[in-house]
């Protein structure tokens, strides 16, 4: 097994673990953190491809993902704070009235 295969395998395992966390966990903050894990897996695959191809495109995309992840957290946390102030719980089951 060479290095690229190892890194890509790690990247997709991180992504799949993050996706599994978003699906199975009930705590809103834990789900947010699992989304961050998915972004980290994507970042690792981008860096691996960028190193393999020797171009900077992947690294540039990683920087843009850094910005997107920061913005996502900066907006998601206040929304979670608002929801928790309303319902007094982090459990996702209490928010079922948000369904359209």
């Amino acid at each position: 097994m060479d290095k690229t295969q190892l890194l890509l395998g790690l990247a997709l395992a991180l992504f799949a673990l993050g996706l599994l966390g978003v699906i199975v966990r009930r705590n809103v903050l834990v789900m947010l953190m699992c989304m961050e894990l998915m972004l980290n897996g994507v970042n690792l695959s981008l860096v691996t491809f960028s190193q393999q191809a020797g171009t900077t495109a992947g690294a540039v995309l990683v920087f843009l993902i850094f910005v997107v992840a920061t913005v996502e957290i900066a907006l998601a946390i206040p929304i979670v704070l608002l929801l928790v102030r309303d319902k007094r719980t982090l459990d996702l089951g209490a928010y079922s009235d948000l369904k359209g």
Partner: protein
Amino acid sequence: MIDTLLRHLDSVLLLVFGVSALGCAALMLVARQPMRVAMALIATMALLGAIYGLLGVHFIAAFQVLIYVGAVMVFMVFTIMLLEVREDSAPRYSKLLLPGLAGFVLLLGALGISVWHALPAAGAPAAGAATPGFGISTFAASFVGEYWLHFELTTVLLLAAVVAALAVIRISRRAGDRQHHG
């Protein structure tokens, strides 16, 4: 023995960091307290930073630690401490646990097989093996030269985020007034 280990130190370290990162990520799924999940995620991100350093992209490693561990996760830990909602009795997993696990195995299998077949086999010279990694000067030149439009578009995203944050604050204030009157 030691000699061989030292010669392949890069690969050994990569393997150790990778396996530890996977272990910490798996810990995120089983830990009950959000704070422990946050600590496991911080460890995963720091280990990924170490992997980036081993790969030779030191500036991405630095930004991984600065932005993810330093900014995003500190914000997250701060929120967990601020909320202080104790939910020991709440169930940890939703009722999608079994379908989720099945989907996880399927996704891992499908992606793993496709990655395995799409890449050159071990031992064969990889296409990128001859190309050396790039430093921060190459990266910076192409970042503001070739990709300046994407960089500028990021500022539009940040502006939209500021506007959205203001909207959230306004909703929060209105909700606070309603609670106050009610």
